[in-house]
């Protein structure tokens, strides 16, 4: 259980979170910002997703919960490759009441801290739709740099959208480089 603020915590997802997830992951406004296309999720889909995450060796997901332990979003690391020392950070805040208060930055900060300090990773990547200016701005502020644009990688609302690829190396996160053979 990881405390972000007095009101917000991160913990492992439980089956009981699927109801809240079912709400926000089917919300068109929220879904529009996410990189994954979805034809919509049923409660079973989400329960299965929670279970899959539990067993996964390449992903770690946390539920973002409020002071009453209600799930208001999720975040985590995916495509974790310890040999290469790389993973992708994901975040989805499901309730608009919680956006715009610096929460996203705090949560990403926590996930990065875990990635570098606990998972001993070297590089964290992010994939963001070019239309998601808020996420792009936030990530750049944290120190992520662009690695290119995967053109027209998604189809959303009648148009093709680009994926912006960003990355943050541990050495720029201020914790020092993981020992590297040339050093």
């Amino acid at each position: 259980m990881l405390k972000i603020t007095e009101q917000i915590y991160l913990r492992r997802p439980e089956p009981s979170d699927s109801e809240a997830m079912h709400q926000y992951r089917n919300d068109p406004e929220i879904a529009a910002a996410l990189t994954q296309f979805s034809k919509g999720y049923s409660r079973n889909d989400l329960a299965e997703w929670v279970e899959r995450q539990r067993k996964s060796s390449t992903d770690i997901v946390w539920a973002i919960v409020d002071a009453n332990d209600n799930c208001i979003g999720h975040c985590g690391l995916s495509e974790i490759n310890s040999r290469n020392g790389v993973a992708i950070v994901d975040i989805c805040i499901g309730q608009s009441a919680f956006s715009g208060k610096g929460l996203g930055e705090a949560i990403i900060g926590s996930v990065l801290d875990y990635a570098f300090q606990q998972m001993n990773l070297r590089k964290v990547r992010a994939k963001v739709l070019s239309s998601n200016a808020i996420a792009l701005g936030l990530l750049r502020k944290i120190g992520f740099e662009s690695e290119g644009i995967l053109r027209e990688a998604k189809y959303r609302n009648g148009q093709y959208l680009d994926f912006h690829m960003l990355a943050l190396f541990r050495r720029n996160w201020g914790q020092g480089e993981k020992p590297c053979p040339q050093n």
Partner: protein
Amino acid sequence: MAISVGDLLLRRPEPKDVEAMYRYRNDPEIVAALGAFSKGYSRSDMMEWVERQRKSTDDIVWVIADAQDNCIGHCGLYQINSITGVAETAICIGAPSFRGGQTGREVIKAVINYAFEQLNLRKIRGDVLSSNKISLSFTRKIGFKEECVLHEQEYRNGQYVDVHVFGLFRRDWNPELL
């Protein structure tokens, strides 16, 4: 990938290796030196072991194959932990004609190189029984440093035996000196 070591090849274990392994892994002289205790292996045990290694995500084991592709021993990296960057190494040369020469050294060199150059590990560990003088001296010679001794840790041939725990950091690894 398969790793060439002189005329030998380190390659993934195959069912056809079972017979050779069955012989040397039940040979008392060879077994006495090994860190792990065993009540003896049947051919079925060896077959299962080959299949388990194939699927394992924590270990990488190679058969040491001679020029005729016959198994003369095995070696590998065990308990590979990519987060801590550590793995254990072990080698077992089963064919008498290959024991005592440069083979062991060259094979371990190749395994350690693989651990650092391909798996991006940071530290290799090796455990050696105090009764295995040859292995103790060999391990020190290739650059491992003794980190601790687990006293009277194992039981062999009616006696308690110490286990010497060795470690080799990538920063201290210099294959050119060997």
